[in-house]
């Protein structure tokens, strides 16, 4: 059985910044990694 994204998920309108939604998602996930890293460092430093 194949996974298939419905046709309605494809975009015609890009975001107002970063050029494409792919770039936007990468920035968001990079931000999450950074925040988790900061939280981890915070925990370790003050433990």
């Amino acid at each position, binding site marked *: 059985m194949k996974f298939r994204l419905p046709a309605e998920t494809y975009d015609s309108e890009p975001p107002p910044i970063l050029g494409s939604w792919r770039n936007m*998602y990468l920035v968001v996930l990079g931000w999450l990694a950074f925040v988790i890293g900061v939280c981890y460092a915070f925990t370790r430093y003050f433990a």
Partner: protein
Amino acid sequence: MTTLDWIVMIATMIAIPGFGLWRGRGGKTTSHYLLAGKTMPWYAMGLSIMATQASAITFIATPGQAYVDGMRFVQFYFGLPIAMVLLSMTAVPIFHRAGVYTAYEYLERRFDAKTRALAGIVFLIQRGMAVGLALYAPAIVMTVIFGWPDRLTTLIIGIVCVLYTTMGGIPAVTWTDVLQMCIIFAGLILALITVISLMPHGVSFTDAVYLAGAVGKLNAVDTKLDWDNRYNLWSGLLGSTFLMLGYFGCDQSQVQRYLTGKSVAQSKLSIMFNAIAKVPMQFFILFVGAMVFVFYLFAQPPMLFQQTAMKTIATQPAYSSVQNKYNDAWSKRERAARALNAARQRDDKAALNASIADFRTAQREIEGARQSGIQLYEKSAHESGFNDTNYIFLTFVTRYFPAGVIGLVIAVIMNAAMSSSSGELNSLAAVSVMDLYRRLFRPDETDRHYLIVSRVCTAIWGTWAVVFAQYAKNLGSLVEAINQVGSYFYPVLLGVFILAFFFPRVRGSAAFWSMLTGEAVIVACSLFTHIAFLWYNVIGALAVVIAGWLFSIVAGEPPSHVLHVPGVSPRTDTGAV
């Protein structure tokens, strides 16, 4: 509260809903009432989504959670940005372009009417309970400040909520949320500044952070994989992702927010805003709670933060000894905290290590003394599971915040709770009317008829929420309670939407029975295992997907047709992932 507090509170409580009603004025159609006529900009939707999830409960309960349990609760939100990205790629464009009133309307197009109805009913059960808990939160405020009974205040706030929702609909609720979140952000910053400024002479901000860390209150990340531990990095990244997918992708109270967007891009931007802002905001709120803990190292907190409970135990013969034990434990902890701080400032390593050990021992002793007070209350009140986490932050605010600021904070909490509850009532009405009433009973009535029925449904759900709230008292921390309720139902909704989006072979009957199977699996996990509730989201969703897949194979059903949306040209060449 002073006169100034009362003036600030009343003015704010009138002004904020008034602003929302003014911005949302003019609509007299069902589309305007339930979807704001699809006119909302991204920042309004984004702030409204945050306000709906955060509301008063976040402001009240989360700092208290950090006070008791440290900051590990922040891990619960680690899955949110991941979920937001996935939803932006899938659910947002699908729902938006399908032109539906509710998420469950899409399920009928993809599967059948009974699957839509079942999903709608699951949502109504889950959200109906959650809205009751959300109503209970501001009642805590009134109990702490005025000593009013929880049940009476819940009733009053519930009535106000119903009236407000029926007047404004989703546009008013959304614009109220916008203003609300701005004030909440300001209130949080003000709270942190106030608590730090209240630290005793000689205790700097870095000293306070060090003291909080010494007894594990800054435990923001726990990397140990433990299935019984509610909050660790792995349950946050995996379990929370599934929960957030279910909440933001399948819960009508959230879906309805981004269905109000001017365009798909605007709706996507609104949830990207949440993806970036939510975790730092939760971290900040928990940090405020940790600082409140440090403040109470030097100013004795009440043994129990719930005033009515303190009054109850004060009449007991054993009260004096328990209270004295608590007083002694607090004095010992204060001395240990000051000794630790002094050793740190002298940079005396040997004294520092000894002081840390003393401080931790004193912390355990005061926790034991507080537990004795809790047991005394439970014994005298014939109750079990007493929990006063939700009272901690408000007790601090009302005792130590300056005049005027208290009124503002209380108004923010009350408004946030009512606004959030109103939005939930609006979504409950939307599902009741669109997915059940109009679909199953009266499909051919006028728009005005459905608008009136929507308002009647709002009133009925408001009544139910108030009744449920009467029994919310002993559910523990409200944040956890709401998330636990969600973890029983969201996985089933998430599973069926995964089937709808990604498994074209699965058809109506297979989807319907897979939902029931998934719910049975979750109930079995709850009854027969000790697995932490966040994992129910993963297990339940996977159970639905696997069951749906197996049922479709057994039934030998052909692939369903791709939903056709006018004006959209599907790129089927890259459709497989």
